[in-house]
């Protein structure tokens, strides 16, 4: 089987991506063209492969499943045209399940100077959109839209993991109004989350992906039609619970993981944000950011 093959580094982790299917690897190559390409002469972190579900599916009614270093058994087969999405999913899974050097948080993040905001929330709460707006409309440095890496050091730092931003459904149009089409990946329709389109972070975010930042504000966005914009501060223990539950590995990191989150919620204020409109969201964040000093 001839394999298409590429290596790419995102923040601290290098991925080896391969498949006998040409199209998804080529799509990944295009999407990641601005990222550092790993070389063959380097030890990489995780291998991810898209393989045919059954051997003849390579040619007929093409569908693929994924193999990787960390458990991928449960992934449902994906049509060939959505292969790029499968890679993204598999890459994230490796970080969520296998990466133990930092706390992996299911959160978006962005920075101004060396100070960062962490955006936590359930899928669909508006994390990706808010982080895309911050970086493209408010001049923030994009650190990541899906996973935030919190180093268990003193002082606590956030390591950038600036993967392409996974925009869904209405938020694609919201960002398309603001950003040139050349920074968008292909439109993937009919996925389990509706229509998905990747947006490359601004070039500066990729160029500075080894520059950490210090967390200064934690927000949890709640987008809902027709609500008046407002913020509410979380108690420390509530912030702890939200972060701990949003983490894929903190509970498995033992006392250093506990210690880091305790320090984080003591040092950094956390707020719920309610809004129905992206301009309101940006204004709420700006106000809190000014207050966080």
């Amino acid at each position, binding site marked *: 089987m001839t394999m298409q093959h590429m290596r790419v580094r995102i923040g601290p982790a290098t991925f080896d991506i391969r498949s006998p299917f040409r199209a998804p690897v080529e799509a990944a190559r295009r999407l990641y063209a601005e990222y550092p390409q790993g070389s063959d002469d380097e030890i990489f972190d995780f291998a991810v492969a898209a393989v045919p579900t059954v051997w003849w599916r390579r040619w007929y009614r093409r569908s693929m499943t994924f193999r990787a270093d960390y*458990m991928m058994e449960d992934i449902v087969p994906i049509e060939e045209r959505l292969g790029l999405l499968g890679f993204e999913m598999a890459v994230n*899974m490796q970080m969520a399940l296998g990466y133990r050097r930092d706390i992996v948080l299911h959160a978006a993040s962005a920075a101004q100077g060396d100070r960062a905001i962490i955006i936590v929330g359930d899928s669909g709460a508006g994390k990706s959109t808010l982080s895309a707006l911050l970086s493209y409309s408010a001049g923030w440095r994009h650190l990541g839209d899906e996973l935030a890496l919190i180093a268990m050091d003193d002082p606590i730092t956030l390591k950038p993991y600036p993967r392409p931003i996974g925009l869904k459904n209405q938020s694609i149009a919201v960002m398309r109004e603001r950003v040139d089409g050349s920074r968008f990946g292909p439109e993937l329709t009919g996925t389990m989350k509706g229509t998905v389109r990747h947006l490359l972070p601004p070039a500066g975010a990729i160029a500075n992906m080894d520059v950490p930042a210090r967390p200064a504000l934690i927000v949890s966005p709640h987008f809902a039609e027709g609500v008046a914009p407002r913020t509410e501060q979380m*108690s420390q223990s509530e912030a702890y*619970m*939200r972060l*701990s539950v949003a983490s*894929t*590995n903190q*509970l498995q990191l033992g006392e250093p993981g506990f210690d880091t989150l305790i320090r984080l919620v003591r040092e950094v204020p956390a707020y719920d944000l*309610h809004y129905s409109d992206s301009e309101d969201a940006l204004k709420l964040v700006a106000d809190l950011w000014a207050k966080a000093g």
Partner: protein
Amino acid sequence: MANETETPEGTSIDAEENARVASRRRVLKLGAIAVPAVATLSPSMAMANNGGGAAVSMMACQVRIPSRIDADGDVVPDNAHVFRQGGHWVYKKDPNSKQKTRVFRVGSNFSYSGQQIKDATAGGVINPPAGVGRHKFEAHVRYMQHVRSGNVPGAGLSCLVSLTNSLNVANI
């Protein structure tokens, strides 16, 4: 959980604080025996969840429901005029509208355990616990969904997190 106004806040109570507390001769009121007082974040459960975030043990989880909740899951204000109409309790939610909203009432210490909620919403189908009518339970689930997103303060903290998954499947 113990009522907050009747319990001390800090962990270590020094002698002075002791004397102060003792001199007030307060009554320490303990919570009901059946309501667990610890919530646990457990790494093995996080692992069982396959990396999709941790789980809080459902057994140690309690959400108290306010005595008057309307059909939208909002708390009925104390000063609202609630009256009976057509066999139901209702009130005018918007004073400028003629529309009436149904009100569901419970006793002062009514709560659900995490397990009850989990059972009642298993498989994405609402199946109210024994003794709770369907409409009332749906209103309560709506209330809990608000609580989860921080709209209503004061419900059991541990439940905010553990309920997230159960309530997500309840399509209300």
